[in-house]
Structures are given as C-alpha cells and as structure tokens.
C-alpha cells in the first residue's frame, strides 16, 4: 500500500515536471535578453546598446533619455526592488530591522547562557578541515551579495543570512568554538546606530529622514545610487550579527 502511494505521488510529480517542459521555451527562442532591466542587470548599459534596443522595438532613437536618463537621475539603482526597499520605503526597512532585533533580544533573554552546549562526539575529520577552508569564502560570498545589492537581486537580508549560515557551520564543525556575545552585540548595535545616523544626516542635508544625499552616479557601476549600498552594508552586517547571536543563544546552556 505504501508503495502504491509512493508511485501515485511520484506520478503527480512527473505530471508537474512535464507541464514545466511546455513552459520553458526552446533553446534560442527566448526574448528576455532584449529587456531593459536585463541589460541593467548585465551591466551593459552603453548607449549603443540602448539604441540597438530602441531600433529593434521600432522606436525613435531620440527617446533614449526617456529610457535611460530618468532612472539614472532619480536613484541610480539597477534593481527596482532595492530602490523601493532602501530608498523610497527605507523607514519601513528600519522597522523591519528593529523587529528582527527584538526577536533576537527575546531569544537571548530566554535562552542565553554563558557556556557552550557540547555534542559529545567529535565531528568528522573531513568535515572539520573542509569547514576551515570554506568558512572565510562563505563570508566573502555573503559580503559580495550585500555589497552588490543595488545591482543584482539580493541585498542585506540574504547576505546576512549567509553570514549566519557560516556561523552555524562553525558551530557544527568545531566543539570549542564560541562566539562571544559582546562582539556580536557591539557589531549589531553599532550598525543599527550607523543606519539611524545615515538617516539623520539625510535629515540635516536634504530636509527629510533618510534622504539620498550622495550623487547617484551611472547605473550599473558599483559606486552608484548614493547611500543605498552603504545602507545595505549596514543592514547586512546587522542581520548577520543578529542571526549569529541567535544561533549562539540556541547553542548555549545555563551555568
């Protein structure tokens, strides 16, 4: 009976995969690469490319400012979601970071101890050594994700989560490793404070909270879109420190 159920569910899975085959277009038949946002994402925003795109759509090449110029003027983000999350609705993001901070604080109050919980078994040798190689590279990858948050999908929250994943890997691989609570607390507190200070600087310079006061630059470069990458760096470090502290709390015991 169990096998029958298994085969039935697998047949449903087959049907799902086959229906997916119809959705995927054939090789070379896709038109996505001529979309504007795609050329922003691939950092190929030269004017010649824009002209080619407009010619292909049958539009006049005079409207090139309409496609590229305005976006460049306003916020300079290639990624629309980032420009909404960190530029237009940045106060909302500050609130979200505060919610996460409160959750981490609650877990720390309830579960926080000063000693590390031991598994009682040494981890596998292969796992120990490979973790020692992997962890710095994983943290670098997390930094890559949140520094490039305004160019590619990603940003502070996924980057911070990847940093916390590296911390979890360290806890699993090393019996002695214990992240000191002072360092994570100091990092998260200072990053949250810097976020608010960036907002207050915007208030002082531009007249309202979290004003984008730096020049926006050219879309597609790394140094563009004003304070957005800086704020995303703050958010990424803060979320990474918070989630690492949460993992530390879950790994510690009283006494």
């Amino acid at each position: 009976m169990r096998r029958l159920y298994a085969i039935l569910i697998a047949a449903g899975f087959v049907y799902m995969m086959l229906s997916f085959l119809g959705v995927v277009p054939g090789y070379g038949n896709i038109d996505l690469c001529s979309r504007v946002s795609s050329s922003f994402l691939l950092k190929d925003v030269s004017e010649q490319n824009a002209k080619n795109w407009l010619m292909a759509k049958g539009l006049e090449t005079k409207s090139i400012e309409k496609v590229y110029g305005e976006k460049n003027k306003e916020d300079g983000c290639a990624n629309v979601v980032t420009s909404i999350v960190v530029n237009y609705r940045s106060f909302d993001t500050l609130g979200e970071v505060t919610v996460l901070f409160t959750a981490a604080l609650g877990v720390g109050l309830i579960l926080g101890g000063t000693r590390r919980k031991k598994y009682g078994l040494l981890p596998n040798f292969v796992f120990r050594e490979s973790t020692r190689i992997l962890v710095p590279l994983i943290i670098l990858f997390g930094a890559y994700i949140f520094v490039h948050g305004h160019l590619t999908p990603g940003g502070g929250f996924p980057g911070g989560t990847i940093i916390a994943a590296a911390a979890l890997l360290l806890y699993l691989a090393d019996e002695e490793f214990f992240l000191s609570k002072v360092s994570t607390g100091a990092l998260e507190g200072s990053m949250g404070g810097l976020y608010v200070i960036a907002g207050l600087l915007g208030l002082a310079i531009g007249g309202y909270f979290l004003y984008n006061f730096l020049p926006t630059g050219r879309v597609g470069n790394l140094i563009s879109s004003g304070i957005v990458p800086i704020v995303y760096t703050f958010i990424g470090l803060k979320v990474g420190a918070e989630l690492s502290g949460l993992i530390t709390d879950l790994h510690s015991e009283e006494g």
Partner: protein
Amino acid sequence: MSVFITALVLWLLLTNFSYSELIVGILVSIAVAGVFKEYHGIKFDGKLPIRLVLYIFVYLPVFIVEMIKANIDVAARVLNPKLPLNPGFVKVKTALKSPMARLFLANSITLTPGTLTLEGKEDAFYIHWIDVKTLEKKEEAISGRFEGILKGVFE
C-alpha cells in the same frame, strides 16, 4: 595573509573587473582576513605557484580519469540486473601529515571507484568499500594512486 589573497582572487572572479570593484574587494578581503586571523585552514607559502602548477597538471588529470572510471563502474553495477556487491568497512593507513593533503586524499577516495570515506583518525581512514577483494593489499588498491601525488604536491 593567505586568506587575504584567496579572498581577493575569489572576489575578482565573482565580479566583473573595474577599479572600484578592486578597491571594495581589497577592503572586504582585509576585513575577512582580520576576522579569521587564527581560525582558518588556508595556509601557503612562497612555493604556491609551483604547487598550483603541479596540482593542475599532475593531480587533476589523474583525478578526472579516476572519476570517469568510477562512474563507469557505478553504471555497470547499477545497470547489471544481478547487482554484484561485496561491501565492507576497511581501515586504511596513510602517511600524509598536513591536513589539507589529507582532506584532498579523503575527497579523492570518496570520488573514486567503489569507496566512501567515513572517518579520519590520526594515521588512518575508515572506508566503506563496495567490493572487498583482499584485505592485505588494500592500501595499494584504494589510496596508492593518490598518496604519492598529493605528497609531492603539498609537502
């Protein structure tokens, strides 16, 4: 220092090259190397280029040939209707000392025909072997091909 160089190379591979990327990459790599001043397993010295050349031109071809042989082996076993298996857990001694060389040896053992590393102790690996032929010559049959090469590359 070695962490810094590795991190910077990985950063430049991940991004398209420009000067601002280079500057930010240097900053991030300094931060990562500062955090992992003590806890890391990436260490190398001035002989790195020789080792890299040796690694690419001596180790990798042997490794890839062994991997393709492993897969043909697995395919033959899986597609055979009689399923010829004779599994067992064996202990294999090794002479390698540096952790990196032993890590690569363990991974090579896992990816070559019919063997899977379970655990490494001070001087030995415990291995699940899918087809135990003999118990005397097991070192030569399992790890002999790689051990000399890795000793030359890493030590």
